[in-house]
């Protein structure tokens, strides 16, 4: 039986470039060699990246997405990526308080965690690790 690919992908979606830069830095270092961290500033970019990852045989481990963005909100990004990768865990980043509705929507299609902006310490990393595991077989 062929061995499962050793790496999985985390896609970060945010309309703010500086956030993507910071997230990429933090997650690449924190997740280590078992994960490839991709960034996208729009839903379309995210779908394109997901398509490429699928072509490369890299499964999606987690979606890290901002909630409030122009064009599409976090729940829509989650829904669209889960169409490609059912049950995809989602980390919802938000600077707002009233996320219960969005969280409820996202939780229907899989696990979700909410991380408030600005996040402290290893908040995002721990959320991703908590949802996606450490990359080791369960």
């Amino acid at each position: 039986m062929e061995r499962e690919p050793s790496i999985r992908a985390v896609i970060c979606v945010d309309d703010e470039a500086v956030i993507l830069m910071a997230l990429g830095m933090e997650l690449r270092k924190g997740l280590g060699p078992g994960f490839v961290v991709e960034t996208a500033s729009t839903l379309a970019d995210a779908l394109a990246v997901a398509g490429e990852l699928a072509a490369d045989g890299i499964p999606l481990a987690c979606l890290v997405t901002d909630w409030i963005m122009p064009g599409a909100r976090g729940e829509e990004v989650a829904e669209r990526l889960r169409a490609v990768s059912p049950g995809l865990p989602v980390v919802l980043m938000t600077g707002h308080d009233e996320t219960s509705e969005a969280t409820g929507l996202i939780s229907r299609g899989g696990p979700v965690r909410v991380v408030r902006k600005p996040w402290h310490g290893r908040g995002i990393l721990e959320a991703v690790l908590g949802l996606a595991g450490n990359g080791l077989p369960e």
Partner: protein
Amino acid sequence: MTLSVRRIHFLGELAALCAIVATVAAFAFASADAVLRDFRDDEELALERSVIFLQSQLDDRLSVFSAYARDALRGIRPTHSPDMDAALVVSWPGLAVLDILPGEGDHPYFAGYALGSAATGEFLAGLEDGELAHSGVIRSPERDAPMICYAYRRGDAVIVGMSGIESLREVLGRVGTVSGGAFVLASRDGFPFVATTDEYPVSFRNTGGQGAARKDGVWYVSFIEAPSLGGWLYKFSPEDDIDPVLDLIRFSVLPVGFLVLLFGVGKNILERRLILLPLEALASGLASWPASPLARPGGMARELETLYGAFGAAERRTNEVLDSLREARDQLAGANEALEARVSERTAALRSANEDLELGNRKLGETLSQLTAAQDGLLAQEKMAALGRLASGVAHELNTPLGAIMSATARFADEAGLGSGQVVTRLRALEEAEAGLLARVVDLIVLNAASAECSPDKAVLDGLRKLLADRPPHEARKLASEMAAMGLDASVPEALELAGSRSAAELLSLAESVTSSMRALRIVRLAASNAARVVDALRSYSWEGAGDRPQPVDLGVQLSDVLLIMNDRIKRGCSLERDLPRGLVVMADPDRLAQVWINLVNNALQAMAGSGTLGVRVAAADGEATVTVSDDGPGIPADLQPRIFEPFFTTKPKGEGTGLGLDICRRLVTAAGGRIGFESRPGRTVFSVSLPLCPPGTEDRHGA
């Protein structure tokens, strides 16, 4: 002697009517005169009784006569002419009045003697200066009728009134004989009077405007100013027969007396006391006369009945007049009462209404002040709400750079702390060539850092993937992704070397660690710069100043700032189309103008309910800058469009809006000399604000 009488002058518009009445009365008088003479002997006693009746009534007239006499004396200025004797004869109702001047005879002072009555002369001679008296009934043996004489003396002038019908005839009949002169008659206001005219000034006896004169043996007599008779001037000579004179008398003096009785001298004499009481007394006296010869057919009674009938007619007429006057007076009084009642009613109603009005005014005033206070409160509330929304937006907007900064600094801390030793160990494990490659890669990363894209371009990734094509796809993907993230692309030889290296993953990891501090700092700098922009935009608005402090405002700059601090709200599902060229400067209070844009953008965002396209543009035309804020929401319902600028008008649920936003916008724009308008249909609503442009070159001290 012959007496030629010629009417010289005639005046008075009522002459014709009065002449008719006077004729009738004179006829009645003449008839009565004849009857009286016929029955003089056998009815003397009865006649006397009637005269007594008359006397009692005539007492009443004494007072009237008195007034008249004084008036007459005022008008008489006796100036004695040696060649002329004259008597002023004045008729009074039922009596004759004589002004007797010095003359010849036994009683030279009183022409009354000329009447042939010693009793009259005695009466007159006994008059004291200023005395007013009547003689009582005088029965003179020389006369065949009783008479009453009234007289008033002032100095040498005496005014004498003679009562008794017969006496007049007697007076007239004897004047000429006693005095050897003549008498004159005149009439004024119904009274016979003596008058003079300017036509005969020389010889006219001046008696205060009326009189008579003798010239060349001819007497001229004036009758003027008599409304009932007109004014006549007669002339006659002593040779004239007395009869024409009597005719004249009958036509003038006596009728005048009756006229006075019938129609009154004036309104005063119309009074009942003067007319009706004497007549009633006369009638009752006659009626109570037992076996009165007056009752005989064809006798005096018939004539008196005629007379009485005339009086009765006068009475009826008077009664009618009085009744109608009384009725009119009653109606007037009734109308007055009703009017007064209505006036008081209206006055009360008006007073009540006035009180209501005052009360209403007070209440309105209180309400107005309450409303003003409430409006001030709402304005403050609206401002606070706007500030609150803005603060919330700003907080979220600052969250992004803060999040990036915290993430980056945490990463920097990890690397600089715990990771440092590991990195050194790993570096020492590298071969010479690998270390050299790493050094060049790190240099490259640092060099490219300034221009590196934060989000790797797909072309860059694809290029790197080709370099890594002989590796497993997932491995190639990861390497390409990380190389791109650090600013490496396929065009540099180091990328090719790295792609061919066995230790590519380790080298990239080390490069990442070594450059992480630099990249983290870059993130921090970028995020801090973003945060500074937000703070700069926010700092432009004091939100405290209430005053209007116009200054040049660059609309492009200000709108960009507003969109920046509202970015958090805008990006919640909405896309933004903007066309905000710099350099369009208007004069306005920046805070207030910003409030307008914030309100309009808020409204547009709320109209689109989370998704849609917000358009914010500014353009110049015809010396004006026009800012448009558009949305593709459902539009404003047509029936609400006329009301949207009304204060407190809101379509938002209770508690979500004060309804003052657009009202405030309109007031602020108007205050800045601009205008605000909108067009709305489903799918497109555009609010436009036009403001006068400042002259080119005006500095924007605020936003530039």
